[in-house]
């Protein structure tokens, strides 16, 4: 596999694509995983993502600090998540319906407040060049890594450990699997879910910040093409496990790079099919994984999908 060959180019494009494109999926999926482990589905994360993207861009432009933008995006997302949790605490409220309403609400206010920020260019997040060892420009480009990507990967491992080994993880899992048991142990189900949905919203907001401040790195109203919704699907396909969420996000990002990469080396026939690759891939993996008995066992017991 000598550098420069067509195969090498596509491979590097896929690795680069996984690193560049997967981060929003990774953050939204991890956040949704935590929310769902507490027994609630928040479908509003698409709206949270867009709101996060807008508030990050606006903050970065106004203050000149992209990292402050990331923080504000997270806080805005957290607000959206906690709003979801608060509404869902009211009697006879369906969490899926509230999620859809908040999705529209989030994109709506993001578009409303985002108008003045479409034109200006805000400072972007820096990247860490990890490909300095190679003199191949493609390797160098593919390995320009954003700190958020590294934080996301570390977070996946941390959450996997924390869910298993900490008291907070245990409380979260109990709440998600059996409300009755959680109450018997003296935990407030509502409070746990408020925290879990708020945390999920925070991560989704940060995912949005990545979109507007790093890749593709500008704010406009067509910025998210359904990344938030796809990430929710990824959680189900990853069967509510942080490490599998991470792998699913990476796979999805890599598959998304196939279409443009193949066209760039001259395989130009059927680009519609290759552009659909991530979705086709997810569909097959979901059919493969969700049909098994294991999938049922992994699903949180209180989730309205499974109840």
């Amino acid at each position, binding site marked *: 596999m000598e550098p420069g060959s067509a195969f090498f180019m596509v491979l590097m*494009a896929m690795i680069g694509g996984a690193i560049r494109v997967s981060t929003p999926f990774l953050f939204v999926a991890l956040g949704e995983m935590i929310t769902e482990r507490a027994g609630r589905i928040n479908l509003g994360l698409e709206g949270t993502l867009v709101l996060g993207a807008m508030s990050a861009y606006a903050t970065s432009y106004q203050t000149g600090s992209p990292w402050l933008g990331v923080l504000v995006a997270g806080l805005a997302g957290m607000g959206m998540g906690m709003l979801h949790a608060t509404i869902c605490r009211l009697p006879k409220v369906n969490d899926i319906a509230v999620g859809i309403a908040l999705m529209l609400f989030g994109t709506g206010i993001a578009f409303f407040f985002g108008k003045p920020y479409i*034109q200006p*260019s805000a400072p972007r997040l820096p990247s860490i060049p990890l490909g300095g060892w190679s003199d191949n420009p493609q390797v160098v480009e593919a390995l320009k890594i954003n700190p958020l990507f590294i934080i996301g990967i570390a977070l996946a491992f941390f959450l996997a450990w924390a869910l298993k080994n900490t008291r907070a993880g245990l409380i979260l899992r109990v709440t998600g699997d059996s409300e009755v048991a959680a109450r018997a142990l003296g935990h407030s189900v509502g409070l746990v879910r408020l925290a879990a949905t708020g945390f999920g919203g925070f991560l989704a907001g940060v995912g949005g910040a990545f979109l507007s401040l790093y890749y593709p790195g500008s704010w406009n*109203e*067509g910025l998210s093409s359904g990344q938030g919704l796809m990430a929710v699907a990824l959680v189900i396909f990853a069967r509510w496990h942080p490490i599998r969420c991470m792998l699913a996000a990476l796979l999805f990002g890599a598959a998304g790079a196939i279409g443009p990469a193949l066209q760039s080396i001259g395989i130009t026939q059927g680009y519609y099919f290759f552009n659909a690759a991530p979705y086709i891939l997810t569909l097959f993996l979901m059919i493969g994984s969700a049909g098994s008995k294991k999938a049922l066992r992994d699903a949180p017991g209180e989730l309205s999908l499974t109840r």
Partner: protein
Amino acid sequence: MTFDLLSRRSLLKGTAAGVAAASFGFPGALRAATNVTIGIVYVGPKDDFGWNQAHAVSIGALKATPGVKIIEEENVPETAAVAKSMESMINLEGANLILATSFGYFNPFMVDVAKKYSKVTLRHAAPLWEKGKHPDNAGSYFGYLDQAHFVNGVAAGLSTKSNKIGFVAAKPISSVLRNINSVLWGARSVNPNATVQVIFTGDWALPVREAEAANALIGAGCDVLTCHVDSPKVVIETAERRGIKSLGHNASQASLAPKGFITGAEYKWETIYKIFADAIAKGQPVPNVVFGGYDKDMVRNTAFGAGADAAARKAAEAAIADLKANKPILKGPVKDNKGNVVLPNASYDNFDRVLDGMNFLADGVVGSIT
């Protein structure tokens, strides 16, 4: 749902009639017939650095004209929603000229509204209207942007060192294909070794995929990048970040690429909009079809950026002078990139209708329509 909409629409109509009667009933004479109210509908935000901004900037030039009132609506999808927008502009705001700026607005939505309101003038920004087939109060206007893309190509042909020009395209429809081919023909007119490599994203606004496509083209060795998508912001910014040169599309993107911007293909809609407003103000009929290129001042190239060296500037200016004089840019016979002869004549007029339905990628373009 249908029932709701019907009842709401009739309610709106009723209210509109009432308001109109109440406010214009007695001092009706004050509303002179020479006043022009122009309703303009955009498919996206009007500050998108692209198609919609090009229209919005031009319509802005009319705002100062006395007697002209402008109503704008953004983000109107190409669905029944646009028919409702147009009807409310007509009924509630008294618009007498409607400008529908997106391709998919025409059929059936604008055609239906034109049939319903025969006293209102409606114009659509694409060459779709046909006499006899569509209502007489409807019509089309468009600029031949391919001429400005040809100039882009001339500048790019002298700017590229790798002889590879990258093109991020949305969909393989005739206007997009013509712009791609024009960049190639422009580049080849000054640099016979130039090629254009195209990546189709599949839709008009997919920022993440546009960024991926731009990166893939740069990875394949392209050192000048251009595009035909709704908002070129992402492509131009990606090119600038990766340190290569770029060519704009639709509106001016010069401010996005202070180092690498060469020039850009822009519409000059205000020429057309002024023709419309003048005709209405004088009480003359508005022409059904208005079109033109450099010869009629309906397209232009963005002022040269730092990426354009002296040779590129000189050649591009010469090309513009030729286009203004209506010199044919296309010398045949033309082959597509599969080797078939698609345009057999030795020369084609720049406005030859045969070229309107362009459905091939010319020899020298790397890429495929399917």
